[in-house]
């Protein structure tokens, strides 16, 4: 059930990505660049300007190059910036050094861009620049990519301009802005210009900067906000607004971190909510079932080298089955003989957990294993400057919700779910009605164990896989189930998310470890106050 749902989810995701790519594709043909090729002689003149004596003259030459239509200008400026543009010692040829390691440098002709063998310190002379010039060249390069390339490249170039616009380049940026069509690029350009104008003392330009989260905007405004005058007081106002907005975005970020941490807790605890919450069986080996799920993800990845994505998708059903098989084996061999003796069940399953841990240690190794993430789970989605959401965490959150929904549907709509609820509420009556209670026990336990395996597969994307993986989650998982109210899947979801968010909210104040302690103590106290948890079962459940 959950497998199908997950497949559908991926399909939906792929469609979404394709739809999002359409505007990018359409923007591509819009930037046909018509450059009239200049003659070699004109090119040589431009290059000679760059080799002028005195940095000021060089600066003027850079502007000339940038304004020219030479198709090689970007290569020249890039090479100049990196100290790889050189002139023949005796002669008028200019070269670009393609690799400046070693003594003999491979060089290409700067005008024809053809390979012309090698040069060395004795035959060619590199053209030097200073810091002012460097900033200017960077600005010029950024401006150049502003008019060339697709929206993405222009946007990156415009973003790089923020804070680097100076008196020389301002005219160029203004021209570009007049011709630019993309809104996102325009916004960056306007920010860059406004920042420059504010630095020149233009108070009105501050309006454009209101609510900008870019750190460069903030860094420029902070020195301006000091002192007296209209500009300073206005800048203080803008800064305060930026600060408020940034805080708000960070709160959203904290909430997201909390929800993703909470979804891990929920995933780890949701299987327990079935075996402990619904069946009333204390399974201390639950953490080890999670570990087995994580190991099956790792093992599949060893079987399918180079295909982490496929391995991960296959690991979802495989991890479920492995953990479910172990779970059913535990139920058949140990737990069913200890029915109605919760403390003994606790001890026996703890023994099983030790055996499983040592088994994994002996079979695989005591070392932690890293499970690679597939391409589409790496990186993060930069929503705004102060808010980024990593794909792996987002995937875990979605996965958790899907698993929860699937589990809820199983309990609510299937025959098995009906029988489980019947056996839970009144075992004898259910048996009298023809429910095979022993079989229901076995399948329920298998389901709970399988979900633990799914949690393990998800965890393999967040942390390393090792024999002690399960131990780290067992205390938390039990607390989540007890906190949420035993026998209540919704309670587990709410409790897990609450604890996750609470932990993240506390962390900046008291540190990670103390936050965890505070949450633990809080839950302990809460259970004293309300032993039945957040959502106590209504009526009499025997």
């Amino acid at each position, binding site marked *: 059930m959950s497998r199908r749902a997950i497949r559908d989810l991926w399909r939906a995701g792929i469609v979404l990505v394709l739809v999002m790519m359409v505007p990018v594709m359409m923007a591509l043909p819009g930037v046909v660049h018509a450059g009239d090729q200049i003659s070699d002689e004109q090119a040589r003149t431009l290059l000679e300007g760059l080799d002028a004596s005195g940095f000021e003259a060089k600066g003027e030459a850079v502007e000339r190059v940038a304004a020219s239509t030479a198709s090689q200008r970007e290569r020249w400026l890039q090479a100049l910036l990196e100290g790889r543009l050189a002139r023949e010692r005796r002669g008028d040829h200019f070269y670009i050094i393609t690799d400046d390691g070693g003594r003999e440098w491979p060089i290409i002709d700067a005008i024809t861009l053809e390979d012309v063998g090698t040069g060395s310190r004795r035959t060619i002379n590199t053209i030097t620049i200073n810091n002012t010039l460097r900033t200017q060249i960077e600005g010029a390069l950024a401006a150049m990519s502003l008019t060339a390339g697709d929206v993405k490249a222009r946007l990156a170039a415009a973003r790089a301009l923020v804070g680097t616009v100076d008196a020389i380049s301002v005219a160029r940026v203004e021209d570009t802005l007049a011709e630019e069509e993309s809104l996102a690029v325009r916004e960056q350009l306007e920010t860059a210009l406004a920042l420059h104008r504010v630095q020149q003392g233009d108070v009105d330009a501050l309006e454009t900067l209101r609510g900008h989260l870019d750190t460069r905007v903030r860094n420029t405004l902070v020195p301006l906000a000091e002192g007296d005058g209209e500009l300073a007081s206005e800048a203080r106002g803008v800064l305060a607004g930026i600060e408020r907005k940034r805080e708000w975005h960070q709160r959203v970020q904290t909430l997201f971190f909390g929800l993703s941490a909470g979804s891990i807790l929920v995933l780890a605890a949701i299987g327990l909510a079935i075996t402990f919450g619904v069946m009333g069986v204390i399974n201390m080996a639950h953490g080890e079932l999670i570990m087995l799920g994580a190991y099956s993800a790792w093992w599949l990845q060893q079987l399918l080298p180079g295909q982490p994505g496929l391995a991960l998708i296959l690991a979802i059903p495989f991890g479920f089955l492995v953990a479910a098989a172990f779970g059913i084996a535990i139920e058949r061999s140990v737990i069913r003989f200890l029915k109605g003796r919760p403390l003994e069940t606790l001890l026996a399953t703890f*023994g099983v957990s030790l055996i499983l841990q040592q088994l994994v240690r002996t079979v695989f190794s005591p070392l932690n294993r890293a499970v690679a993430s597939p391409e589409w789970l790496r990186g993060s989605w930069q929503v705004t400057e102060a808010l980024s959401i990593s794909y792996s965490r987002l995937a875990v959150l979605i996965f958790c919700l899907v698993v929860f929904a699937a589990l809820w549907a199983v309990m609510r709509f299937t025959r098995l779910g009906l029988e489980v609820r019947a056996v839970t509420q009144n075992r004898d009556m259910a048996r009298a009605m023809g429910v095979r209670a022993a079989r229901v026990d076995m399948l329920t336990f298998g389901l709970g164990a399988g979900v633990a395996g799914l949690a393990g597969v998800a965890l393999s994307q967040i942390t390393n896989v090792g024999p002690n993986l399960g131990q780290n989650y067992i205390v938390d998982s039990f607390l989540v189930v007890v906190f949420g109210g035993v026998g209540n899947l919704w309670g587990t979801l709410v409790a897990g998310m609450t604890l996750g968010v609470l932990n993240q909210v506390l962390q900046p104040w008291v540190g990670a470890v103390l936050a965890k302690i505070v949450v633990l103590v809080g839950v302990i106290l809460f259970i004293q106050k309300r032993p039945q948890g957040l959502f106590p079962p209504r009526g009499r459940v025997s």
Partner: protein
Amino acid sequence: MSQVCTGSSGAGGVRRSMGHLSDRTTMLTCAVLVSAAVLVVGLNLLPSDHALHVGDATVSLLGKYFCYMLLALAVDLIWGYLGILSLGHGAFFALGGYAMGLYLNAQGTNIDGWQAWLGHFPLMALAVVLAPGLLALVFGWLAFRSRVTGVYFSIITQAMTFALMLAFNRNEMGVGGSTGLTRFSELLGMPLNSHAMTVALFVASVLAVLLAFVICRMMTTSRLGRVCIATRDAEARTRFLGYRVEHVKLAVFVVSAVMAGIAGALYVPQVGIINPGSFAPLFSIEVVVWVALGGRATLFGALIGALVVNWLKTVLTTEMPDAWLFMLGGLFVVVTMALPQGIAGLAASMRRQKGGAVHE
């Protein structure tokens, strides 16, 4: 000590108590403890090249076992007689141990602040009793008052010791962080690694176990003990009969915690280190299997269990370290499924069949 009637009337679903042993058992246990102590000390006095000589290292190891036995007694007192399964008794043990560790740390060095206060022996002794005692009092009061029982209690005790482990791992606590406290030099002006100190600590541990055993025995055979067993077997009924079940539970829980704290305090100078590992949930739950193997609600069973399991652990972790967790895990499963009354139960059923003496 009075003779307790053996025929406990088992209500539906209530298992027969194992706790009703004749006074002969008490006497036998005390005799075994005393003679073991005398034997070990005597053999230690033999010249070191003698075949039966027991070295200082072995005496220390045995002393460590006796501390574990005291801890097992504490767990048996509440689990065996009250049915409270604490998965956090290692926390009380460790708190006592830290009190002793801080005292030892303050010897011969200039430490100021709150740690200097623990440098005085009487204050340390007070801390050994008060730290676990107060924690148990507050924790137990909160838990028993709101009638947190059964596995819920077990889970929150486990969470308690887990939280304490995290806390003591922090360097900001000023108690050594994750390394813990070690490199102790002297106790009461005597070097810790001296021969006399080793023997003295061993004797102190044996005496502590002996004293605790007698106190537990008196408690469990008194009226209080019978209320405890009644609470274990039918809590609601006991409450309806007018007993303040919460008070009984709290009192015994605190006594048990203090015993665990003393065990920890005796353990630290003999082992020479205390670190947050003692707070680990695994250690606390290991203690439970000692008691389960020895036999719940027998007191002497806890002593046997602690000795057997720890001896096995010492042998196995050195001989074949991989096998130890299999062994321990297997013990949990086998004991709960096949040997619910533990070694003591096995011995009792053998005695019933043969009429012979209790012997392991």
